[in-house]
C-alpha cells in the first residue's frame, strides 16, 4: 500500500512539473517577421478583380491585396478598415466616413475619397458586378474633402455597414479598369507579383502597410492543386505549408504526419435538407415535421462529417452569437412520432420521393445517403439522384423542380441578409416558403436601427423557420485546416475569403 501511494505521489509531482511545459508547448511562440508561405487552393480564380468575380477562390486572394472601408474580425464584428470612424445620421439615411490618412496604393498613388467614390460606383454596376444588387440602395455618394466620404441611402438599412466589409466591397484606385482582373492594385497587406494561370499566384509583403508590423510574411504563394488527394499528398511531402477545407476523414492521418498540425474553426455555414413547400406531399406541415422527427441529425453529423460541426435548429449559425437561439430541441429524433404524423397527414405507409444531391459536395452527398436510410424506417423511400453542380443549380435552385435536396449555404454578417432568403416570391427562396408574417418581420429587421427591436424580429423569424419546419435543419460544418507545425496566427473570418496578414513562421 505504502509503495503504491508513493508511486502515485511521484506520478502526480511529475505531471505537475510537466504542466507548465505542456502549456508552453501549446501557446504560440512570439510572432516573427519574414519567411514565406505556400497555401493550397483548389481552384484557379477566374480573375483577381474583386468587383467582377463571384468566387471564393478570388476573395481568398484579393482580400490580401485590397482593403475595405470597414472590416470584420473573427467574431463578425464591424471594425475600422480604410475608414477610421463613421457616423450614421439618426434617420439611418446618411453615412459619413473619415478615411485613414497617409494610405497609399501599391502603385504609390495616395488613397483618397475619389477612390472610394469610384469603387462604390464600380461595385454597383448592374450586370457587371455580381454583387451590384447589394449596393442598389445607394442614392448618392459625395466626397466633400479627400478624407471624407458621405453615402446617402434610398431607405434605411441595418445591414448596409456590413455590406461594406465583404471582399467584393474592395477599394480600388480611381480609374482602374479591366486590367485589375489580371494585375490587381490595392492598399492591402500584400502586393501582387505574378499569376501563372492554373499554376500559382504570388504575392509579396507591402512594406508600407498601414497596420504597423503587418504583414509578417515576406512572400505568400497560392498554389492551385485541384485534386484533393494531390493537395494532401503535396502537404505531406513538404511542397505546401497550409491546406484548408481538409476532408474530415483525413484528419487522423494528417495529425500522425510528422511536422503537420490540424486546426478547426467554426464557420459561417448552414446545411439543411431543403424541402420544396410547393410540391406534394411537402405542402403539408405534418409531413415536413415528420421528416424532421425521422432524421437522427446527430448520426448524420457523425456519419457525414465525423462530428466536425454543430447542430442547428433554424437558419442561423452559432457563430453569429448575437442573434443565435438554440432551437435544436424542437424536433427530437422520434420515428414513432414521425409515423404518427405521416398517418395523420394521410400517409400511413409513407411515400416515395426523390432526394437530389449536389455531386461536388461530398459532405452533402454523404448526409443525403444517411438521411435517406433513416427515412426508410418511417416508410419514406427517397430515391437518391446525384446531380453535377450546374445541373443542381438549374433544376433545384432556378426551376424549383424538386421535392427534397441536401445543400448548404454560406452565412453573412448581418442576420437579415441570411433570413431574407425565405421572403415570399423571392428568387433565392427555392423552398417556396410563403408567410406574410415572416415577410413583415424581414422588413422590420432590415430597416430598424433599434438593436433590441431588431433582435426580437430576428429571433421571431428563427422560431418561425423552426415551427413551420421549412427545412430539416442539419448543422454548421467546421472548417478543418492542416498546416506545418511552425505556422502560427492563422484564423478565419465569418465571410467568404480570408486574410493572412497575421500569419507567421516560427521556424526558419
Amino acid at each position, binding site marked *: 500500500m505504502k509503495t503504491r501511494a508513493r508511486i502515485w505521489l511521484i506520478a502526480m509531482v511529475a505531471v505537475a512539473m510537466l504542466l507548465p511545459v505542456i502549456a508552453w508547448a501549446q501557446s504560440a511562440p512570439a510572432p516573427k517577421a519574414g519567411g514565406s508561405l505556400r497555401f493550397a487552393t483548389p481552384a484557379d480564380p477566374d480573375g483577381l478583380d474583386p468587383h467582377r468575380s463571384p468566387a471564393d477562390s478570388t476573395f481568398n486572394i484579393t482580400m490580401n491585396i485590397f482593403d475595405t472601408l470597414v472590416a470584420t474580425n473573427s467574431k463578425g464584428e464591424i471594425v475600422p478598415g480604410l475608414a477610421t470612424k463613421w457616423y450614421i445620421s439618426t434617420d439611418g439615411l446618411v453615412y459619413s466616413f473619415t478615411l485613414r490618412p497617409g494610405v497609399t496604393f501599391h502603385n504609390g498613388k495616395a488613397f483618397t475619397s475619389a477612390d472610394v467614390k469610384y469603387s462604390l460606383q464600380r461595385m454597383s454596376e448592374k450586370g457587371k458586378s455580381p454583387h451590384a444588387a447589394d449596393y442598389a440602395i445607394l442614392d448618392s455618394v459625395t466626397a466633400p474633402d479627400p478624407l471624407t466620404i458621405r453615402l446617402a441611402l434610398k431607405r434605411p438599412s441595418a445591414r448596409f455597414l456590413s455590406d461594406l466589409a465583404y471582399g467584393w466591397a474592395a477599394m480600388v484606385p480611381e480609374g482602374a479598369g479591366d486590367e485589375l482582373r489580371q494585375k490587381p492594385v490595392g492598399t492591402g497587406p500584400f502586393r501582387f507579383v505574378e499569376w501563372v494561370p492554373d499554376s500559382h499566384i504570388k504575392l509579396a509583403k507591402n512594406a508600407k502597410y498601414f497596420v504597423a508590423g503587418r504583414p509578417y510574411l515576406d512572400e505568400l504563394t497560392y498554389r492551385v492543386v485541384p485534386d484533393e488527394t494531390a493537395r494532401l499528398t503535396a502537404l505531406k511531402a513538404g511542397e505546401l505549408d497550409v491546406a484548408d477545407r481538409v476532408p474530415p476523414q483525413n484528419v487522423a492521418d494528417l495529425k500522425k504526419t510528422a511536422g503537420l498540425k490540424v486546426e478547426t474553426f467554426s464557420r459561417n455555414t448552414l446545411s439543411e435538407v431543403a424541402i420544396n413547400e410547393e410540391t406534394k406531399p411537402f405542402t403539408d406541415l405534418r409531413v415536413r415535421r415528420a421528416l424532421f422527427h425521422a432524421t437522427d441529425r446527430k448520426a448524420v453529423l457523425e456519419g457525414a462529417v465525423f462530428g466536425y460541426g454543430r447542430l442547428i435548429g433554424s437558419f442561423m449559425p452559432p457563430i453569429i452569437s448575437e442573434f443565435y437561439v438554440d432551437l435544436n430541441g424542437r424536433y427530437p429524433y422520434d420515428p414513432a412520432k414521425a409515423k404518427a404524423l405521416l398517418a395523420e397527414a394521410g400517409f400511413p405507409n409513407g411515400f416515395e420521393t426523390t432526394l437530389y444531391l449536389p455531386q461536388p459536395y461530398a459532405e452533402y452527398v454523404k448526409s443525403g445517403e444517411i438521411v435517406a436510410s433513416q427515412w426508410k424506417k418511417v416508410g419514406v423511400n427517397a430515391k437518391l439522384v446525384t446531380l453535377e453542380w*450546374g445541373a443542381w443549380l438549374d433544376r433545384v435552385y432556378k426551376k424549383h423542380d424538386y421535392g427534397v435536396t441536401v445543400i448548404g*449555404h454560406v452565412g453573412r454578417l448581418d442576420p437579415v441578409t441570411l433570413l431574407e432568403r425565405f421572403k415570399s416570391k423571392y428568387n433565392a427562396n427555392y423552398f417556396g416558403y410563403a408567410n406574410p408574417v415572416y415577410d413583415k418581420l424581414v422588413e422590420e429587421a432590415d430597416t430598424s436601427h433599434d438593436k433590441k427591436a431588431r433582435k426580437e424580429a430576428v429571433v421571431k423569424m428563427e422560431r418561425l423557420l423552426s415551427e413551420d419546419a421549412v427545412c430539416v435543419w442539419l448543422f454548421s460544418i467546421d472548417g478543418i485546416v492542416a498546416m506545418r507545425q511552425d505556422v502560427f496566427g492563422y484564423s478565419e473570418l465569418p465571410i467568404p475569403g480570408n486574410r493572412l496578414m497575421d500569419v507567421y513562421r516560427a521556424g526558419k
Partner: protein
Amino acid sequence: MSGRYLAGRVASLCVTLLVVSVITFLLLRIIPGDPAQLILGADSPGDSLRELQHELGTDRPLPAQYVSWMGSVLRGELGVSLRHKRPVIDLIVERLPVTLSLAGLALLIAMAIGLPLGVEAARRRNTMADYGALAFSEIGQSVPSFWLGILMILAFSLQLGWLPSGGFIPWSESLWQAARHLVMPSVALGLVLAATIVRMERSSVLEVLAEDYMRTARAKGLAERHVIYRHALANALIPTVTIVGLQVGTLLGGAIIVEQIFSLPGLGRLVLFAVFNRDWPLIQGLVFFLATLTIALNFLVDLSYAWLDPRIGRG
C-alpha cells in the same frame, strides 16, 4: 501528293469543323446548366440573374449567339470566355506548352517501351519473354492512368521523396526541373499507349515475319538484327502508326485526368473549368481547337504512310 488531293482534304476539314462546331454549340444549350446561374451560385441576392444573362449575352437568340461566336473564330480569337473575359485563343496559348510537353513525352515513352517490346515478343514468340510482354500489355491496358499516377506519387514523392508530386516548371526556366515535374505524369499517360503498341506491333511483326520477302532477306545472308529492324519493323510500322494516330485523341483525353492529378496547368484543366462552369464560348473554342488539332495530326499520319511505304504515295 497532288494539289487536288490537298484541296479536297482542306475542304473536308472545313466541313468537319463546321459540323463539329454546330453540334457542340447545340449540345451545350441542351445540357442543363445556366452560365449566369453558375456565376451567381446559390448564395447571391435574388434579383441579378436576368441582368447577368443580358450582360453575358446568353439571353440572345441561338442563331445570334452562334454567328457572333463564329465571327470571333474568324478573327482568330475562338470566342471570348464568359468567366475569364479573355479571348479563348489566349487562354489556350498559355496552357498549350504544358499539354504538348505532356502528350509528346507520353508518346515518346510509349514508343520507346512499346516498339522494342512488341518486336522482341514477336521474335521470341511463345517464350517466357513473349508472355511477359503480353502480360505487361494486359496490365497496362487495364490500369487506369489516374490510379497509376496516384501510386507513383505515393511511392516517388511521399515515400522516397525523389520527384515533386505535382506542378509545372517551364522548360525555359529549367530543363532539369521541367523534366522532373513531367516524368511521372508522362509515364502515367504513356503506359496505356505503350501497352496498346506492344500488342499491335507484336501481331504485325508476326504477320510480316511470315512474308516471302523475309525469307528472301534471310536467304541473302543478312544478319538477323538487320532483317528484323530494317525489313520487318519498317513494314510492321504502318498499322502501328495508324493506331498511334488514332490514339492522339485518347492521349488528349487522358491528359485531362492526368493534369488534374498532377496539378499541371494545361489544356485539360481548362476543359474541366469550362465544362463545370458552362463557359459556353470557352468550351466551343476548345472543342474547335482540339478538333482542328486531331484532324491535322491524322492528316500527318496519312502523309507518313507515304514516307513509310513509298508505294502508297504513288497512287
